């Protein structure tokens, strides 16, 4: 599948991935994230069960401390 990930086009061998699988494949190891798929917020509790498919627009925002 090909998706838009943080405004970049990215292709994966898999036909679909859960959010958790995507984070693993991409090696996104930050603990604090905010994720939106096609403009809709995906809460942490839903990472395991939310699937990403062909054409989806995925935003992964990394949060770091400081302020």
């Amino acid at each position: 599948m090909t998706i838009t990930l943080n405004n970049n086009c990215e292709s994966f061998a898999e036909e679909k991935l859960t959010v958790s699988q995507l984070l693993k494949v991409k090696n996104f190891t930050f603990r604090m994230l905010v994720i939106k798929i096609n403009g809709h917020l995906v809460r942490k509790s839903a990472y395991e069960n939310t699937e990403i498919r062909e054409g989806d627009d995925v935003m992964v925002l990394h949060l770091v401390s400081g302020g």
Partner: protein
Amino acid sequence: MTFKEIKTQLKSKTVGIAGCGGLGSNCAVALARVGVGRLILADFDVISLSNLNRQYFFHDQVGLKKAPALAENIRRINPEVSVTSHDIRLTPEGIVPLFRNCDVVVEAFDLADQKQMLIETMLAELPHLPLVAGIGMAGWGMNDSLHCRRIDNLFICGDEVTGTGPECPPLAPRVGIVANMQANTVLEILLKSFNQIA
């Protein structure tokens, strides 16, 4: 636009400031100087000596609660601003009633888990409301890495990578730059007809 016109337009606006530390105190002061009509401040913390390397407080305010102390500093700068201070720790349940009538909300927390809590709550509960977050501004130098970008109604200011650590403290210059980038983004939203993404 003349400054008079700008002030007239800002007079009727309300901005929520979630956190009165390095980002919140400097951002709120910038917004007060240009004449935003109403500021809603929230923070549970007390001013400590270690805060004075970046936060808009004074040495004789150490030990005072941040939200009311910042309200007092703002009154000394521009008494025309209506400031409401809330000495509370913001929770998902508390955020919505406090900020629902704001024109813009500024995320100005220190810790990543608090930033996540606020951003998630706002995106889930008040997704139409513009939210301006500060992410990644510890250390010094690296002016070029600081940027601002928009994801729907969420605006992110900072470098998005440099977190606080023992060898990388948050300091006045970079925190102040990002706080003012946030204030600048708030002005851009308030002075243009904001193009809301549903």
